[in-house]
């Protein structure tokens, strides 16, 4: 079999990935603090605002998160061949087949590795779900950030979500990202172990090391 380097991920995709990771981590940590703030009284005086500062960090990270999410949505339609949604959404016959192949491989039912350069459709489904949760976090987050804005309040009314419900769901959805992060890391390392194709380094270099691909 002939192995060689293939260019898979563009610069924007890689930038998106790391902006998303870093902002999500910041959002989770600051969000947990905002949810249940603690303080050391000797740190507090006129010059210290621990809660306000944590909230500001949260809002700044939120804007990075919004930008990253929008960028990924753009790449779903205008990115490279592998970045486009039709390459990994399990809706076409080829992708449905790939979905069950990947599922079978992860369950040790099939021995043949995926012969795709881009996401396998199982991962693709997880990423689509993550994007959906990210958009939900963006919308509920903006609703919480601008409680007096007609636009975001109107959206809340349209979805019949109160501020309190938005806050609750926003907090609940954070746990999805912890879950996703753990699975993502585990599957990555698993893949690197069984099918060393440079999955991790591809998010830095954009290149994968791969044998002959299907179609």
């Amino acid at each position, binding site marked *: 079999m002939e192995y060689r380097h293939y260019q898979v991920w563009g610069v924007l995709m890689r930038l998106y990935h790391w902006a998303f990771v870093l902002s999500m981590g910041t959002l989770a940590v600051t969000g947990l603090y905002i949810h249940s703030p603690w303080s050391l009284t000797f740190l507090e005086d*006129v010059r210290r*605002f621990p809660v*306000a500062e944590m*909230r*500001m960090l949260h809002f700044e990270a939120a*804007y990075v998160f*919004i930008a990253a999410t*929008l960028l990924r949505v753009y790449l779903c339609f*205008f990115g490279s061949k592998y970045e486009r949604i039709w390459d990994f959404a399990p809706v076409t016959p080829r992708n449905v087949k790939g979905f069950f192949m990947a599922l079978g491989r992860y369950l040790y039912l099939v021995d043949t590795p995926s012969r795709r350069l881009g996401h396998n459709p199982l991962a693709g489904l997880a990423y689509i779900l993550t994007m959906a949760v990210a958009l939900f976090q963006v919308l509920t987050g903006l609703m919480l950030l601008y409680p007096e804005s007609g636009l975001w309040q109107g959206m809340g009314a349209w979805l019949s979500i109160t501020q309190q419900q938005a806050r609750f769901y926003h907090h609940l959805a954070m746990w999805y990202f912890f879950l996703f992060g753990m699975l993502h890391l585990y599957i990555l390392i698993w893949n690197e172990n069984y099918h060393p194709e440079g999955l991790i380094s591809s998010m830095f270099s954009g290149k994968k090391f791969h044998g002959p691909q299907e179609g």
Partner: protein
Amino acid sequence: MVSPYSQFRPSFRCSRRSFLKGCGMVAAALGLSSEMVPSLVEAAASNTRPSVIWLHFQECTGCSEGLLRASHPDLASLILDIISLDYHETVMAAAGRQAEEALKSALEKGRGRYICVVEGGIPTKDGGIYCKIAGKTALELLHEVAGPAAAVIAIGTCASYGGIQAAHPNPTGAKGVGDILEGVPVVNVPGCPPNPISFLGTVLHYLTFKRLPECDALGRPLFAYGRKIHDHCERRPHFDEGRFAERFGDEGHKSGFCLYKVGCKGPSTYSNCPAVRFNDAGVWPVYTGHGCVGCTEPGFWDTMTPFYERLPDVPIPGDRGIVSSAEGAGKTVLGVTAAAMAVHAAVGIGKRLVKGSSKEKKGE
């Protein structure tokens, strides 16, 4: 069963209900559990009302007014019910020789047991000649009356720290009681005027526990002056978010935003104003749209002026408030992202154009 409340003297000016209500308010201000209310009631209703001698020096009587003309009439009568006000120049009916007799007899009868309340600053320059009552200087009167007292309560900022008379250049050498008296416990209840609840709380604490309340380094009871106004202010969230009234009457002011930029001194003033409030109507300066002037702090005429300019060295979170700062950063991030997408799209279109034209060439 005999209720502890049944021992009320029939001569009480206020009803049982308002008496208990007043005691409950004071217990809340003191931070006492509701279980302590009966003890307060018992102390307040006891037949041995402490004798109080009230001295007026360099003052405007605003503290007495604030206390006795409180919109909550029960509070005023409660004060007059629990203490025996034996000498108070503006309230007493007696005048001239009769008044002096009253003072003399109160001094003799209650020696070592009465409470001396001082209202107003005490001039010390030139032998104290700038304030004289019945031929005696304020200094002489203070030593004569407050010296043998069981405890001294300085009511208002003037009696506590000198007040407006002591403002630069302090022509009369005005001082607060605590700076002059030695060997007598002095509690300061500053404010211009102080909240009647803070004064009543101090008196009832003394009657209930037989000792004066715990005080801070400036002699102020911690139950009333233990926390910063800024930290309990109802406008505090606006400060954190960066929403300010920039001028009186502007949109921010009308929307009830933070008054820090129009001179509020809440960030460096200790008092219970935002929690206890005034006049039974739930109001206090910041509530009505005027910044705090810091009237419970020593020398506030010198240190808190100009009243309508912001305090120096009070940073606003995120420099201009957390939301507007985050928005500024957010606009940059979103702008850069949009630019990156535009470049990406332009390169894509450019590539396709180049490819298309090369295909055309091949086709030829």
